[in-house]
């Protein structure tokens, strides 16, 4: 699997993401926000966490309009895989690749701790390594992770089995306890929790590993 990790000014989880992908067996390239094209033959684009462009205007708004994001949107529209974690999820909603938006946490506080997640579907490359209904622990670290979408969108996400993860104890006010959602073709995943921070024993928890393993299984020959 060939993967590209996008770096913006203010990204800070790019290296962790690259390490998790490499340890899973991917061939990883890092791309800069000013690049107008992705490396040839990339299967997966990973948009890491951080504070792209200082979160100015709105989290992810400026990054979503950068040259590389045009290429990421084209990649997704052509059926490519895109994983957005934390700020990456915010960027994906700002590009319109995923519906809804991430608002300020309901409690107004930045929250950095491991939370319980329920795997809502195993029907995606990202979640096929888990059993639907399984509970896992994955760290969050965000100030703006309060998922919002209108009633119709939430109903559609649920009806189409596109909610990938929910919080077992909602930390931020997200509607429907939503922690991560899939695109219509199930190849774009945005999630606030950080699976790359629950990858190695040294992290204290390896529950994120199966997300990467599932991707590898799906894309190994691609």
């Amino acid at each position, binding site marked *: 699997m060939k993967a590209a990790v996008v770096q913006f000014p203010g990204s800070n989880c790019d290296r962790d993401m690259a390490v998790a992908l490499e340890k899973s067996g991917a061939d990883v390239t890092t791309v800069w926000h000013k690049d107008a094209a992705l490396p040839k033959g990339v299967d997966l684009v990973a948009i890491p966490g951080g504070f792209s462009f200082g979160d100015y205007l*709105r989290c992810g708004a400026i990054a979503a309009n950068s040259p590389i994001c045009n290429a990421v949107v084209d990649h997704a529209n052509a059926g490519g895989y895109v994983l957005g974690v934390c700020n990456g999820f915010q960027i994906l909603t700002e590009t319109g690749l995923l519906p809804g938006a991430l608002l300020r946490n309901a409690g107004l506080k930045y929250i950095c701790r491991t939370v319980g997640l329920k795997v809502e579907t195993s029907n995606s490359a990202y979640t096929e390594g888990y059993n639907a209904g399984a509970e896992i622990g994955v760290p969050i670290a965000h100030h703006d992770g309060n998922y919002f*979408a209108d009633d119709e969108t939430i109903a559609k996400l649920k009806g189409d089995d596109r909610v990938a993860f929910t919080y077992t104890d909602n930390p931020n006010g997200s509607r429907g306890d939503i922690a991560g959602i899939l695109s219509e073709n199930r190849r774009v995943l945005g999630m606030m929790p950080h699976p790359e921070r629950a990858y190695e024993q040294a992290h204290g928890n390896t529950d994120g590993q199966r997300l990467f393993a599932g991707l590898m299984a799906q894309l190994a020959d691609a």
Partner: protein
Amino acid sequence: MKARVHVMLKDGVLDPQGAAVKHALGALGFDGVDGVRQGKVIELDLADGATEAQVGEMCEKLLANTVIESYRIEVL
């Protein structure tokens, strides 16, 4: 031409910052504040020939996220 863009969270979208400001006003003894909504104001200094329609495009594409925010353009 100058334009001022007012961006507000749409009705029905939770505004925790506005709620915190309301709470703080109450704590200061300002009774009778039934609600606070916090938004932002963006001032644009525009070259001659710029149109309000162009400012509208800027709002749609970048200045506001119309999933959660509404905007109002004021030409100065």
